[in-house]
């Protein structure tokens, strides 16, 4: 299908079309302190006119001074919380007359539509698919939510200082399949979206909207926006060559860089919980006071927590050095052995949301520097 134009004032029609099709629509909204992904009911819920200023250990919301809906970059939270809920009850059990009755908890998976998914985030979802859908331990909750998921991707026309998708080859232009892809253009007085339908159901939604054919100038402007985001990253300090990272890390497992970062790292787990691809969880059982009722809960966990690597006798990774090294070498190296691709999409969340500003790209470059003969 040829690219079409959706006027900005008609964006709400897209949201309502999704809602009318039974989707719970999730999009960027303004929390008091940051842009977060949350449920939206109309275009008024979107974080229109707000920007994110991101640096290491730093995030501020700023008014953009224009009417863009998607002028900001990735939200504070990742989409993963909607596909893999942070806490979930797996089953309840009841002891009755000496017998144990197990009651599995099943849910009617909500039919979700994500509005405003960035290219790096589509990659992150694909990476989690490899873990939860295609791997040997299929996760039913994730798989069901994922199967019905409708994505409206948005091409980035601005990069935050922490963005490095251009280094990880995951953006800023959407290249993975998405039901719809939007590019926002605000040019003089005209404000519109260039729209592409990437699937049958995406095109069915488009068929209900008042679209116009895109002129070549409009297409060129959209392209220019994406190129400007790419330029911002390519001229920034977080642009690097990501080829050969796996081998680099494997041959530097004893680099002094690990000791240096361990001095600064809090092992607080923020990076892993903000990361859109980190997928680890813990499973815990509990009882009530009577001992007649038990529950099994699953909740997000982190390789930065001591309990995470606890086996009989103690925690395998007691030091922060071993935890940081585990996280970074898994993310950038052994993930490739495990799943065939890197676990990092360059969204920069681990950099912004580290409370002491540890920057994975700086750490990588420190190891690269020390690696040179």
């Amino acid at each position, binding site marked *: 299908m040829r690219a079409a134009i959706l006027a900005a004032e008609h964006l709400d029609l897209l949201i309502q079309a999704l809602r009318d099709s039974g989707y719970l629509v999730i999009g960027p909204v303004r929390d008091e302190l*940051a842009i977060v992904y949350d449920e939206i009911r109309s275009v008024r819920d979107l974080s229109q006119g707000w920007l994110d200023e991101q640096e290491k250990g730093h995030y501020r919301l700023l008014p953009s001074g224009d009417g863009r809906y998607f002028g900001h970059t990735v939200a504070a939270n990742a989409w993963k919380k909607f596909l893999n809920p942070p*806490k979930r009850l797996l089953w309840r059990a009841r002891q009755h007359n000496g017998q144990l009755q197990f009651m599995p908890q099943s849910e009617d998976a909500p039919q979700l539509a994500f509005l405003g998914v960035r290219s790096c985030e589509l990659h992150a979802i694909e990476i989690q698919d490899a873990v939860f859908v295609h791997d040997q331990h299929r996760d039913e909750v994730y798989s069901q939510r994922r199967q019905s998921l409708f994505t409206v991707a948005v091409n980035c026309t601005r990069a935050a200082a922490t963005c490095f998708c251009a280094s990880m080859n995951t953006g800023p232009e959407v290249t993975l399949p998405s039901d719809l892809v939007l590019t926002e253009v605000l040019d003089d007085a005209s404000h519109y979206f260039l729209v592409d339908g990437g699937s049958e159901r995406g095109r069915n939604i488009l068929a209900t909207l008042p679209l116009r054919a895109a002129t070549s100038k409009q297409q060129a402007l959209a392209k220019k926006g994406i190129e400007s985001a790419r330029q911002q990253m390519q001229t920034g300090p977080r642009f690097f060559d990501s080829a050969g990272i796996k081998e680099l890390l494997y041959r530097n497992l004893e680099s002094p860089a690990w000791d240096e970062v361990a001095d600064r790292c809090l092992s*607080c787990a*923020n990076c892993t919980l903000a990361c859109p691809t980190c997928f680890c969880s813990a499973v815990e059982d509990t*009882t009530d*006071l009577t001992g007649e009722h038990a529950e099994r809960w699953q909740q997000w966990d982190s390789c930065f927590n*001591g*309990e995470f690597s606890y086996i009989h006798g103690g925690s395998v990774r007691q030091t*922060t050095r071993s935890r940081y090294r585990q996280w970074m070498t898994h993310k950038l190296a052994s993930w490739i052995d495990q799943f065939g691709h890197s676990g990092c999409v360059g969204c920069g969340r681990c950099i912004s949301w580290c*409370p002491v500003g540890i920057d994975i790209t700086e750490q990588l470059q420190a190891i690269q520097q020390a690696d040179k003969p």
Partner: protein
Amino acid sequence: MTEATSTSKHPSPSDDAPAGKAKLAVWKFTSCDGCQLSLLDCEDELLTLAGQVDIAYFMEASSRQLPGPYDLSIVEGSITTPEQRELIQAVRAQSRFLIAIGACATAGGIQALRNMAQVDDYIQIVYANPEYIDTLDRSTPLSDHVNIDFELRGCPINKHQLVEVISAFLNRRRPRISEHAVCVECKLNNTVCVAVSRGEACMGPVTQAGCGALCPRYHRPCYGCYGPKENANPQALIDWQSSLGIETVKILENFTNFNTAAPPFHNAASSIRRDRQNPPGKSP
């Protein structure tokens, strides 16, 4: 007090009296009563608890006092007098399991501020008749005096965590209490980080979870009520907060609160004081 249980194995509450209910005792040492009140605050679970255990000694709730031994002793407060030093030995001797609850019992509490000063100076300032006061020069956690079976953190403790610990004891399983950072609770609750988005001097990254990240949920920084998390790195937090221009006195205050005598916080405060006296880079 003479019927000390000397078993070294982990006894179950039913070892002694299989037909009877477990005997529960609640003790108070130097503290504000807030933690034992958390037990009375368990409105939904209190009747169930009373059905499961025999509340044999709980002066805050009832004047009924049954003699030991007790299957489970829940102890609030720190040790600050010579009498308490003796009494905690007696409580330990009468208790199969002993659980320390709250910042006072697990770290010495706010009253451990005296540990960094001269206690007599404090007494002179605070009391009209200092001669009546007989106190130790330091406030210490229970673990300095006796073996503790479990420490439940908080100032005050979280009542849901208390019910969890008692349930675990009654059902002979491990309590589901995490030692990770408050940050994990913020992220699981979808609470935006106040340290990063506001530059607040938040103690969350060095503080153990358990409160449900109560303060950050209201956009307030964490005060460290639950004490140091496992593997805490306060120095890294101090360095970062200093680099943001946060006042040293503010950072120091955060480490000299309810858990001031917990070793990682105590060491952090000492390091800040040392650096204030001898700023780094300035030769003596």
